[in-house]
């Protein structure tokens, strides 16, 4: 009955198209700026504390250094033909209408300066090629609009030249950091990772207390002694996961899900208090040095603990940083077991077990949920899972279908490689940018409204800490409950049948904070 009543393909026809092009609103987002990093935040990660006197010269030098060091960046700055294919592809443009949020226009804020100082035409005939001198005004525009790009790379998918806008944003941020104009949110966090080991600033004692507390919860729920081990020397697997998994909802439910799977498989695994963070915000600010330093914590933890494998938890850009950069930055990982992917994603791990039939699920335990899946940008467009193209789309969905009876994808032009960003990625998940975050979430929220109308979808799963926090915050703005966003391994944890577990089949896991069920 329920199925018939809510499976109405016409139900969404009155809803706005998720990708509807807005009226232009020039300058609408010009005032959107993140808080500046303090001199302490800057110093802790190797940048000048405030805008240096000769900032203009230094910025131009840095730009020159970057284009000399990266053929890719130079090509991205040289090759745009203003075809316009990217103009309506950015979620911040779709949500705000500000033409500077058209990817081409945002890139041009840097490109026009590059042209002025590094191209023949721009040096001698700047008025002919849209070249412009670097000025305080331009620097302010950079600060505003390069912090309105979540580096999600959706625009790059549609660019006939394959221009990677994220690289341009990263370069712009690195130049700004170099001259002392840093952003508080990212830079404070990077400093905490260098000093303490994670974004939160969660020290070893607090980490251990939190994990013990969660072990009690697991025992209460299952009657089993399911461990969340930390700093265990000689363990097989080192799990590196975002520190939000130790702190926030629904992230923690994901962590408990990983623990249940490891427990069921009898794995020898451990977390590390030294590398208690999967995230690597060095990528967001384009700083290879900071990225390397943070990646080195993972390598050191793996060596010190003597593990054979490294698995990454549910974190979007962390998976890009790990999958695409870790080996180059701090490899080779020749001391690990070469029979497993280095590194491995937790979804690859669980997916392989499901394929082998090693796990048993009671899918009905997720029957209070009608689910869709949000492809996180950095997983979708900058990495892979398994050994086939598109594995990063198939593995999460295969897991969800194995643990949940009701799964429906959102409109095709908003998922997989065309996925729209949550609106909080790339170092923008900070409260002073809430207006931007809400606007940027609009395409995804509208796509969700479509499947809610057509299929009665109540929940959306994601495998990124930023996505989860961003959605928990903005979903209520679009008529959803804040706990309608769930972790994949939260659903795995709900459905998994553990050997010897106390069976209480009547109880859907609604009691757990963060678990859904109130959508009505």
């Amino acid at each position, binding site marked *: 009955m329920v199925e018939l009543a809510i499976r109405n393909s016409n139900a969404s026809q009155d809803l706005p198209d998720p990708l509807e092009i807005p009226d232009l609103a020039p300058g609408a987002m010009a005032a959107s700026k993140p*808080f500046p990093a303090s001199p302490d935040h800057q110093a802790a990660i190797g940048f000048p504390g405030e805008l240096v006197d000769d900032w203009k010269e230094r910025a131009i030098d840095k730009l020159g250094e970057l284009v000399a060091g990266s053929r890719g960046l130079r090509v991205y700055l040289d090759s745009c033909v203003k075809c316009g294919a990217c103009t309506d592809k950015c979620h911040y443009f779709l949500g705000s209408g500000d033409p500077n949020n058209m990817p081409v226009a945002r890139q041009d804020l840097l490109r026009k300066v590059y042209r002025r100082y590094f191209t023949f035409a721009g040096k001698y005939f700047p008025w002919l090629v849209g070249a412009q001198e670097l000025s305080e005004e331009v620097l302010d525009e950079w600060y505003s609009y390069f912090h309105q790009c979540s580096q999600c790379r959706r625009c790059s998918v549609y660019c006939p030249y394959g221009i990677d806008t994220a690289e341009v944003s990263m370069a712009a941020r690195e130049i700004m950091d170099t001259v002392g104009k840093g952003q*508080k949110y990212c830079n404070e966090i990077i400093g*905490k990772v260098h000093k303490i080991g994670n974004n939160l*600033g969660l020290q070893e004692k607090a980490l251990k207390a939190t994990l013990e507390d969660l072990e009690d919860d697991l025992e209460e729920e299952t009657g089993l002694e399911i461990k969340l081990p930390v700093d265990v020397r000689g363990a097989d697997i080192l799990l590196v996961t975002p520190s*939000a998994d130790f702190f926030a*909802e629904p992230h923690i439910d994901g962590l408990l899900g990983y623990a249940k799977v490891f427990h069921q498989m009898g794995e020898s695994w451990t977390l590390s208090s030294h590398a208690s963070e999967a*995230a690597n915000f060095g990528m967001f600010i384009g700083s290879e040095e900071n990225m390397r330093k943070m990646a080195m914590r993972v390598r050191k933890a793996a060596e010190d603990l003597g593990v054979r494998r490294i698995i990454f938890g549910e974190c979007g850009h962390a998976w890009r940083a790990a999958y695409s950069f870790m080996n180059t930055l701090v490899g080779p990982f020749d001391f690990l077991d070469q029979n497993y992917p280095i590194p491995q994603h937790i979804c690859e791990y669980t997916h392989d077990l499901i394929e082998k039939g090693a796990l048993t699920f009671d899918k009905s335990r997720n029957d209070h949920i009608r689910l869709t899946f949000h492809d996180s940008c950095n997983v979708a467009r900058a990495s892979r899972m398994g050994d086939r193209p598109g594995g990063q789309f198939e593995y999460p969905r295969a897991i969800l279908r194995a643990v949940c009876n009701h799964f429906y994808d959102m409109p095709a032009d908003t998922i997989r490689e065309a996925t729209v960003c949550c609106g909080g990625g790339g170092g923008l998940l900070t409260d002073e940018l809430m207006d931007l975050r809400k606007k940027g979430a609009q395409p995804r929220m509208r796509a969700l409204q479509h499947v809610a109308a057509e299929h009665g979808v109540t929940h959306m799963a994601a495998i990124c800490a930023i996505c989860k926090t961003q959605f928990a915050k903005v979903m209520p703005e679009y008529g959803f409950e804040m706990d309608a966003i769930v972790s994949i391994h939260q659903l795995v944890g709900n459905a998994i049948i553990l050997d010897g577990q106390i069976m209480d089949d009547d109880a859907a896991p609604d009691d757990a*904070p*963060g678990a859904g069920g109130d959508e009505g």
Partner: protein
Amino acid sequence: MGSYRLNGTEIEHDEEGYITEISLWSKELADLIAKEENIEMTDEHWEVVNFLREYYEEYQIAPAVRVLIKSIKKSMGKEKGNNKYMYQLFPYGPAKQACKIAGLPKPTGCV
């Protein structure tokens, strides 16, 4: 940057109202911060704020929301020991808004 003015003294806070020197916190200051957040402090609010401060003293960080809720469940019962009720008390979230009133630094990261 700005400051709270309490009994003639200025207590500095960051861009978002989190005090920068946590030793300057007092109950009167908590009342003042709460007022600026449009929150009327009740016994329930104080229960949360006091727990946060105790936890911070021990661990130099605010507790996970789940840990907070478990403690509140113990002290105030199941009706109040849940996420929904915490958001009723602190509409901008127990982790951030309650920390601000308790004089603790804002939790950072993907939270």
